[in-house]
């Protein structure tokens, strides 16, 4: 990844705090617990999942910088959603956490050198992931789940 592409990705990632909170305004609160069936997540569950993946990202980026090469942990997302359990948890706390962790990660990423972005961790499933790759994955991950929220809203609207 060249430095201008990286800068663009970091900006894009950092702006997700605004993009996500704006996106959420499109969906009335009274449908945030709607799910079409038990195998799909509602918006509340998506938000807690997004937070927990960002929390893993927080630790992975820092592990790559401080202890490069180390194997990191990877959660089973469906078990976490069910066992933690997301459906009963305060959704505003999740939003606050997502905003904080993206800001903290974005701010750290902006201070790194070119060489830092090649530092990596070992993911149990995906193998070696450097910070460039982690950044790209987290960007895509949030976008994917914002789309998933829109889908849930459309399903809810169709049932009205």
């Amino acid at each position, binding site marked *: 990844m060249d430095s201008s592409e990286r800068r663009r990705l970091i900006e894009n990632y950092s702006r997700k705090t605004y993009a996500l909170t704006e996106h959420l305004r499109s969906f009335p609160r009274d449908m945030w617990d709607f799910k079409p069936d038990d195998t799909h997540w509602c918006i509340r569950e998506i938000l807690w999942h997004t937070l927990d993946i960002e929390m893993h990202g927080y630790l992975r980026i820092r592990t790559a910088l401080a*202890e490069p090469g180390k194997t990191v942990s990877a*959660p089973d997302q469906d078990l976490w959603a069910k066992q933690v359990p997301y459906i009963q*948890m305060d959704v505003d706390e999740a939003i606050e956490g997502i905003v*904080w962790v993206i800001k903290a990660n974005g701010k750290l990423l902006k201070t790194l050198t070119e060489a830092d972005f090649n530092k990596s961790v070992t993911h149990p499933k995906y193998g070696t992931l450097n910070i460039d790759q982690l950044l790209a994955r987290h960007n895509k991950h949030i976008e994917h789940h914002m789309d998933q929220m829109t889908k849930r809203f459309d399903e809810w609207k169709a049932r009205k």
Partner: protein
Amino acid sequence: MNQEERKAKIAEFGGFALALPQALKEFPRSMWNYKPDPDHWSIQEVIFHLLDTEMNFYIRYRFCLAEPGKTVVPFDQDIWARELRYKDRDVDQALAGLVWAIQANYDLLKSLPDDAFLKTVIHPERGVLTLERIVEYSLGHIPHHIGQMRKRFTEWKALQK
């Protein structure tokens, strides 16, 4: 630990979301980067260490609940402090995150049934840890570092005379 003792400990832990920022008011901002020598942490470095530890606890508590028996990843606190350059980073952002993480962990812990505290993870150096044991460790960790910050302040004050 019986249910009452556990409830009291969890409440004590939740109290740190207020007690920690309160304790920090004892120390003037101008000395938060003071350290007596490179081997000791400044108050700013202690705050970042508390934040990163709380983030690790956040993940460990949830692994206990969702994937009991899983091996968690420890971190080398001295390498993190040095390589992540805690001394150069935004301490207000760290404090906001630390208070949020304590509150989020507290909200989770106080909602759990008794049997959840018997769930375990494996720590590569400490072996099998129950959720209850991790909570006990966490409860001792924050006061230990508040004590360390007070010590740093006393050392700094002695140099001002």
